[in-house]
């Protein structure tokens, strides 16, 4: 259970980082022209007049009770905003990871098996392009094509919350944006881990005993390639969280990333602190899941 001390360090860092940020939140809310008393009053209301320790203890004890605090700007509980936004972000990232795995693994196998042919070169250039393109630009390209030229899909918004079809309709383009980027990462990783395994002795053994190439790939290569592929899937899921922030902004999806950037721009430090906490938790969960999945795929790695 290394996750808990790690989480505590993350929380403390987030807390400190947000506190050292320049600019007074109360002044940010009221504007430069506000009177001194008004600012002092608001600071008291926000709890900013308390000592750092007091604020820290309140922050942690609040978290333990599942209380993320109130937004400095809207004065509404942040927990509610997060509860609304989280599903939009999860839908998006899960779609991205799934699409990336479904497209990326076969593409990676294809490029590795047809190494140094035109298929390989095309696949490599495309996947390099995929990991070079910023998510916001890919989003704009897809938007121009599917929404503006073909008029098939909506440009912005996340869809109505209770209408599944509408949600899916609004998920297509952002999901595709993230999915294509993830495909690039997965293709590259799959290619190199398969190339790596194709060089192993047991592959030569399998070939020399007359096994068909297809059987060699499926039975010996793929199975052993799964561990590195899976671990990288975890790492890239985290990279994808970064891209999801940008995708949400381009498509104006009401997700966590959009909330976070809004909180930054409004200098809403409490909201920012809570959102980063959620991100940290998300990252830790993904790491934990990746670790656990090794044990399932590779019996040599068992966690007790």
């Amino acid at each position, binding site marked *: 259970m290394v996750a808990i*001390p*790690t989480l505590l*360090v*993350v929380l403390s*860092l987030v807390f400190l*980082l*947000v506190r*050292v*940020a*320049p*600019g007074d939140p109360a002044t940010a809310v009221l504007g430069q022209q506000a009177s001194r008393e008004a600012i002092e009053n608001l600071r008291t209301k926000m709890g900013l007049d308390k000592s750092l320790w007091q604020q820290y203890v309140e922050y942690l004890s609040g978290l333990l009770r599942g209380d993320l605090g109130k937004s400095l700007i809207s004065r509404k509980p942040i927990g509610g905003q997060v509860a609304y936004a989280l599903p939009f972000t999860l839908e998006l990232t899960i779609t991205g990871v799934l699409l990336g795995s479904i497209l990326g693994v076969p593409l990676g196998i294809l490029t590795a098996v047809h*190494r*140094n042919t035109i298929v390989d*070169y095309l696949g*490599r*250039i495309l996947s*390099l*392009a995929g*990991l*070079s*393109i*910023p*998510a*916001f*630009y890919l989003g*704009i*390209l897809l*938007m*121009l094509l599917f929404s*503006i030229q073909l008029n098939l899909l909506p440009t912005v918004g996340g869809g109505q919350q209770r209408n599944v079809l509408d949600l899916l309709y609004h998920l297509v383009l952002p999901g595709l944006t993230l999915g294509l980027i993830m495909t690039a990462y997965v293709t590259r990783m799959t290619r*190199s881990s398969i*190339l*790596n395994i194709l*060089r192993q002795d047991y592959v030569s053994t399998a070939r020399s005993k007359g096994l068909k190439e297809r059987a060699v790939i499926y039975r010996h290569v793929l199975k052993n390639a799964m561990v590195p592929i899976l671990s990288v899937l975890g790492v890239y899921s*985290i*990279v*994808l*969280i*970064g*891209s999801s*922030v*940008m995708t949400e*902004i*381009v498509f104006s999806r009401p997700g966590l990333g959009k909330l*976070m*950037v809004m909180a*930054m*721009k409004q200098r809403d430090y409490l909201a*920012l602190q809570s959102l*980063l906490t959620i*991100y*940290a938790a998300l*990252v*830790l969960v993904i*790491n934990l899941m990746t670790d656990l999945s090794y044990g399932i795929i590779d019996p040599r790695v068992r966690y007790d």
Partner: protein
Amino acid sequence: MGENRKIWRTFRKNKIAVAGLVLTLIIGLIALLAPMISPYSPVKQDVLNQYDTPGGKHFFGTDNYGRDILSRIIWASRISLLVGFFSVLFGMVVGSIAGVVAGYVGGWGEGVLMRIVDIGLSFPTLVLGLVIMAVLGSGLDKLVIAIGVAMAPRFARIAHGPTLSIREESYIEAAKAIGASPVRILGRHVVPNILGEIIVMATLWVATAIRIEANLSFIGLGVSPPTPSWGNMVRAGVNHLIMAPWLSLLPGAAILITVLSFNMIGDGVRDITDPKLQS
């Protein structure tokens, strides 16, 4: 020299990497010669020529203020390359020093530092950069610091491991015995041993740094207008996507081509570091 030639030969065999190197050199030249080759001023407004379509007098068209897009793209290449280069340099220096010192000194200081590094590693670099940028405020120098700090944990990790094993070598023992100071030991014996790996890592991260700069500028946390950066140009164009799609498309393409060129070089560099994967 023989070693260098071998490295170059490995690199040259990767056609993608060579193409990337050529493209990068061209982009570098464009940035260098910006004042000479840009046809117009990047910031001068021209109300009579708003939304000129590409082609004609303004080869890449003009924006809503009548500014020449081609000139803006050319000038903005300087921002991207400067931020890309210096932020990686900054992250490399800060991260490597942290990693080397932690590895050499050991003890609880090492524990705390490497724990922080682990946490830094577990976050997406973009999100880290975003947060640091929000704390620092906008500006070119802050971009360099924010992206550099966001990358520093990766360099710390790379520098830390080898330092641990070098620490136990007998020549370090010998250096200590003759009374060499820790700074001298680190500078003369540890750093030269890990420098190669760190520089390789740095070349791979320039592409990411440029992409993060574009992202931050796109959000509005990077270089502020009217100074053109590719990211803030794409952002400004988004509002005119239907009427004038080139405002976003062209600077976005510049980002893509530049990041791709650096990544193509990275492809060849990877071949050198991992000879097993050579194409």
